[in-house]
């Protein structure tokens, strides 16, 4: 990497909020670095300051409490996969986590970073959407809580404004135990961005679909009823997405595969 910048690693959340408030648009937040560092290498971002959110006290905290599962911004994808509690209570979260990139990347990439990037092909977003997760957003002026259903604002855009950071992700306790499966269509069997990805969760008769790589943002579809037949379910999901044609596949194929996946998930997820 040949673009120069300064690096700051605040040791408390308060200090972090203050630093971010000071630098505002001049800086970039560094979590796992698996997107930011390649982006700086490629000259996509040329920040003057990079602020590490992994080093403050509690940043790597992953806790199961009465509220549910809460994760700090340094919790990696593999932290989730290695947690027996996460695997047992939130299998859909783990299903999505397992499809994200390669093992080395999962050792470094964070859940928070994956959603803050707001890539349309985010693998963690479908899980957070379907599980009703909330983002606890902090800044020097305070804290606000945004459900992930309202978190994504456009291609690679979230509701975060300069000075704010995603402090905690909370997956509510009531989502625990939801059955789910994530189908991700890729060009190869190995690590790849999705052509499309569809997560379906089922809990207490309620169905939810989280769709990636099919719209400007990851999409939650919660309008499918338990009694809808598969074709109706597929129609509803397709009505909520707007896939495009690009180097990974055409709009036509993406729509076809989303339909196939919805039908497949309905028959497979008990």
């Amino acid at each position, binding site marked *: 990497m040949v673009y120069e910048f300064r*690096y700051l690693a605040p040791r408390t959340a308060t200090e972090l909020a203050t630093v971010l408030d000071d630098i505002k648009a001049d800086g970039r937040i560094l979590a796992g*670095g698996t997107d930011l560092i390649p982006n*700086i290498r490629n000259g996509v971002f040329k920040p003057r300051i990079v602020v590490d959110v*992994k080093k403050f006290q509690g940043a790597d905290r992953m806790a199961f409490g009465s509220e549910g599962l809460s994760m700090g911004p340094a919790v990696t994808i593999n932290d989730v996969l290695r947690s027996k509690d996460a695997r047992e209570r939130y299998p859909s979260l783990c299903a999505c986590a397992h499809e994200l990139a390669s093992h*080395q*990347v999962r050792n470094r990439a964070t859940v928070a970073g994956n959603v803050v990037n707001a890539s349309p092909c985010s693998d963690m977003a479908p899980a957070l959407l379907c599980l009703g997760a909330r983002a606890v957003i902090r800044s020097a002026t305070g804290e606000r809580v945004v459900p992930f259903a309202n978190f994504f604002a456009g291609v690679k855009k979230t509701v975060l404004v300069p000075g704010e950071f995603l402090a905690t992700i909370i997956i509510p306790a009531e989502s625990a135990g939801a059955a789910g499966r994530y189908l991700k269509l890729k060009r190869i069997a*190995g690590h790849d961005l999705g052509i499309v990805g569809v997560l379906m969760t089922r809990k207490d008769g309620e169905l939810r679909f989280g769709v990636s790589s099919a719209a400007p943002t990851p999409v939650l579809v919660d309008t499918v009823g338990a009694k809808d037949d598969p074709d109706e379910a597929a129609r509803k999901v397709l009505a909520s997405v707007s896939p495009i044609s690009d180097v990974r596949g055409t709009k036509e194929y993406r729509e076809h595969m989303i339909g196939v996946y919805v039908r497949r998930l309905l028959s497979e997820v008990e």
Partner: protein
Amino acid sequence: MRIKLTVNGLAYERECAEHVTLLRFLREGLGLTGTKEGCGMGECGACTVILNGRAVNSCMVLAVEADGAVISTIEGEAQGPSLSDIQKAFEKHHAVQCGFCTPGMVMSVKELLADNGKPGVDEVKEAIEGNFCRCTGYVQIVEAVMDLTGRPGGKGELEHV
């Protein structure tokens, strides 16, 4: 920024520019050129090192992030003058061709075996999925690991017909 870290059991303290990746720091700062750069984007795994027990792409880690860390690279793998068990298995099974992916590949296998002494074939493939090898087609690498751990799947021979 001044950083301190332990690499292959040796303590280092160095002044390091803040934008420099761990990969570049290891290669240029410490002269440990065994770790390679294949893409600079975290896709190919040639730069894999073990950072606090976890295999990571060192091209996507800043050296300053690794302040205080314990790191293993390929240069620390051999035990004195003799190769480690992983290295011996790779040697026996011709799991190396051009050798450019080899250091990263060995590091990924090392992390796998530290967690899981008896991985299945699919677990081995998943552990090295992030390490591109354009020469071997991976088969002899997987066979080397399976043979090393005493599981089936470690034998493959050229047939004569």
